[in-house]
């Protein structure tokens, strides 16, 4: 069966398409890409698709999922059809993103200090203080610039021309930015002619922005140019490629726990010349593992004594320890309230309506409507442990209902959104596939930095709404078109 860019029976016209309007005409700004897609010979595209895979394999851009069998150095599928966003759309999104990360950071400072938002009754106390992601070790700790989430990955989905929803806030160790950058590299290598005909906003400055941003949060005790390092769990971590990539592009050391040690309330790295002081640690491992003396005693990935130095301000850790409380799926429900509470502004980006089974009305509604809802574990991530109602069997729903009944507070549910689709190059030609977008927001002590674009993830299977790379999702290059870019907007 040959699929065309127009919606087919797999995707009823109810889905908004990023490129094609109802009736098959390209949307404004997408005309050139659409006609290129029609004219480009399929054979050539197949060859380029293979070339792209070879490039990824060769550069070593792999995503490892260990302990599940299969290829330990798996490639994330890459689609050669870019996803285009207009400058006006991006300007809107970036304003919303900036607003959201500001509120999230203020929330984190607040819950570890005065807890005004709890005292004002905006967020239930239990939801914060009883939460596993809330770390008492962080109470009263003052972090430089009041920044907790230095790098935020905010997952956005779209359901209509002007309908953008935040699906999830990632405030711990969001990954994927290396794919955003490498997707662009690969596209520029494979289809240079497309960049002549489109004014694509460059994303290359991300690593510089990141380093600049990290330097602004150096501890007050730091004199001169701060020493920044990337802390990785090592070779066997699924995002190890990204850790090396970022350290390399920033020109800083990529360290593992064994390379660091604590002495005289200072963190040092072991070098060929002896110890060297470290000021800022861009941490890419979970809080649990960073210090065996403070958290998991069995962690060999961490640095004994690190938490003490951190708490007393001798080193900055990014993202801040304990920041996970802000991306908890139950806390997510309250982000619009946070924006109103801390900034006294109306939220620019919408939340997906969310039911929390700890609330009686929601609990009943969820159990009665499992067939229509996506149910997630509050503590889950990466698309694991979900129930996608419309795609589930009766048995699966019954089994899941038992889990909800056993511990209602551990589950939230959302309506299945009509995620937008984007034409994607599949075996038989182009077909619409659902996409989301993860822009990366950098928060420094001085300002918020945002490169135009983000990582577009695409569900490679027809009809699937799951875009997570750990669930077989792929990625696309994301283009913000400059020709209509409103310079001086949110990015300035």
């Amino acid at each position, binding site marked *: 069966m040959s699929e065309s860019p127009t919606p087919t029976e797999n995707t009823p016209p109810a889905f908004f398409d990023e490129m094609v309007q109802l009736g098959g005409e390209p949307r404004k700004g997408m005309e050139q890409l659409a006609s290129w897609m029609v004219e480009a010979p399929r054979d050539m595209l197949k060859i380029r698709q293979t070339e792209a895979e070879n490039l990824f394999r060769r550069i070593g851009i792999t995503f490892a999922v260990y302990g599940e069998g299969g290829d330990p150095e798996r490639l994330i599928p890459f689609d050669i059809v870019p996803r285009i966003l207009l400058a006006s759309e991006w300007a809107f999104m970036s304003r919303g993103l900036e607003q959201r990360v500001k509120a999230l950071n203020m929330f984190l400072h607040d819950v570890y200090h005065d807890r005004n938002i709890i005292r004002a009754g905006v967020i239930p106390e239990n939801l914060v203080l009883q939460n596993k992601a809330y770390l008492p070790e962080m109470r009263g700790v003052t972090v430089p610039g009041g920044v907790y989430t230095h790098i935020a990955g905010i997952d956005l989905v779209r359901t209509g021309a002007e309908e953008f929803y935040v699906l999830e806030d990632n405030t711990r160790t969001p990954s994927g930015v290396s794919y955003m950058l490498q997707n662009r590299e690969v596209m520029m290598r494979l289809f240079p002619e497309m960049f002549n005909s489109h004014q694509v906003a460059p994303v290359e400055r991300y690593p510089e922005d990141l380093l600049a941003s990290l330097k602004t949060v150096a501890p007050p005790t730091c004199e001169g140019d701060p020493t920044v390092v990337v802390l990785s769990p*090592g070779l066997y971590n699924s995002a190890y490629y990204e850790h090396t990539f970022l350290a390399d592009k920033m020109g800083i050391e990529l360290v593992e726990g064994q390379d660091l040690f604590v002495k005289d309330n200072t963190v040092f790295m072991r070098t060929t010349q002896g110890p060297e002081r470290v000021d800022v640690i861009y941490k890419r491992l979970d809080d649990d593992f960073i210090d065996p003396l403070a958290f998991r005693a069995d962690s060999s990935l961490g640095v004994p004594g690190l938490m003490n130095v951190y708490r007393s301000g001798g080193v900055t850790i990014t993202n801040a320890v304990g920041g996970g409380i802000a991306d908890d799926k139950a806390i997510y429900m309250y982000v619009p309230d946070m924006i109103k509470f801390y900034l006294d502004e109306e939220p620019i980006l919408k939340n997906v309506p969310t039911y929390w089974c700890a609330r009686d009305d929601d609990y009943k509604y969820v159990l009665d409507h499992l067939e229509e809802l996506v149910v997630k574990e509050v503590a889950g991530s990466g698309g694991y442990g979900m129930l996608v109602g419309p795609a589930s069997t009766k048995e699966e729903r019954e089994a899941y209902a038992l889990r909800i009944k056993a511990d209602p507070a551990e589950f939230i549910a959302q309506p299945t959104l009509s995620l937008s689709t984007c034409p994607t190059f599949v075996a038989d030609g182009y077909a619409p596939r659902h996409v989301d977008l993860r822009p990366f927001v950098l928060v420094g002590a001085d300002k918020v930095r945002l490169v135009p674009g983000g990582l577009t993830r695409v569900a490679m299977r027809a009809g699937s709404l799951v875009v997570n790379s750990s669930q077989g999702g792929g990625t696309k290059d994301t283009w913000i078109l400059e020709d209509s870019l409103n310079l001086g907007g949110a990015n300035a």
Partner: protein
Amino acid sequence: MLSRTAASLYWVGRYMERAENLARILEVGYRMSQMPDLEAGGTRNEWPSSAVAAACEDGLIEKHGEANLDTVLSYIALDPENPSSIHACLETARTNARAVRTAVTSEMWESLNDTWLEFNGQWRKSLKKDNLLSFLDWVKTRSTIFRGAMSGTMLRDEPYAFINVGTFIERTENTARILDVKFHVLLPQGESIGGSVDYYQWATVLRSVSALGSYHWVYRDAIKPWQVAELLILKKEMPRSLVYTLSQVSYYLNQIGDGHGRRYDSQRLAGKLHSELDFSKVDDIFQDGLHEYLDKFLVRNNKLGVAIAEDFHFYL
């Protein structure tokens, strides 16, 4: 730089160099084994001497009983469990580079990654007796490409110095070993030292380190053992001679020491070893016998390796 990074770079240098030298050693063995053996009415089996030169003899005998073309192929070229096989060298070089991706350039990483993928994807399954020479050429070419990527793209800083220290200390060891192959190869009965078989064997040693042309250029003379030894041990102009490779080890160690503003034990050892060679004559070497000389040399070179690891905290 991080000690762990320095150690990994040093081993990347050593393993890529070792892979190349293993290919060179196997090439000597292959060519020598093609010499007719008039007595036996066939060709000669010179594979045990190759196994000795590759420092793989004990492991090979234990696993396969005897050294012949088949067992050498499977143990020295292909065996992942033999830490000194070409397979293990290419894989370990790549793993070490992957662990320190930030310290090597993308061209270097891509050359190592390509090498491993090609080995693992093709050679591992297709390597047979009849394409052995193509394989050995391929290994040498891959090592050359890696060195080219390194020399063309890497900053001349501490990481570059460490990878070179590893490369040259490994090459020092291997040149000594390759030269020593000749000692382990027996002349057939009835053949005299200086006879045609002896001549052929020395020529093969030269060829294996790509020095046959250089020999003629330097000596304008027939191949004579003491001149071969002189070329591979004492000639400063020879890129694989002991005196040259040690000058490089010493040079890069000094760079590191100077950068650190101090003087390390390994610098002292390397300098001493190098200047002894620098002031030696070939007669000194042959006084106790070439084999004995090389034996002692290998012990001292090994001590130098240990001192490097200690000076820069390679063992965490």
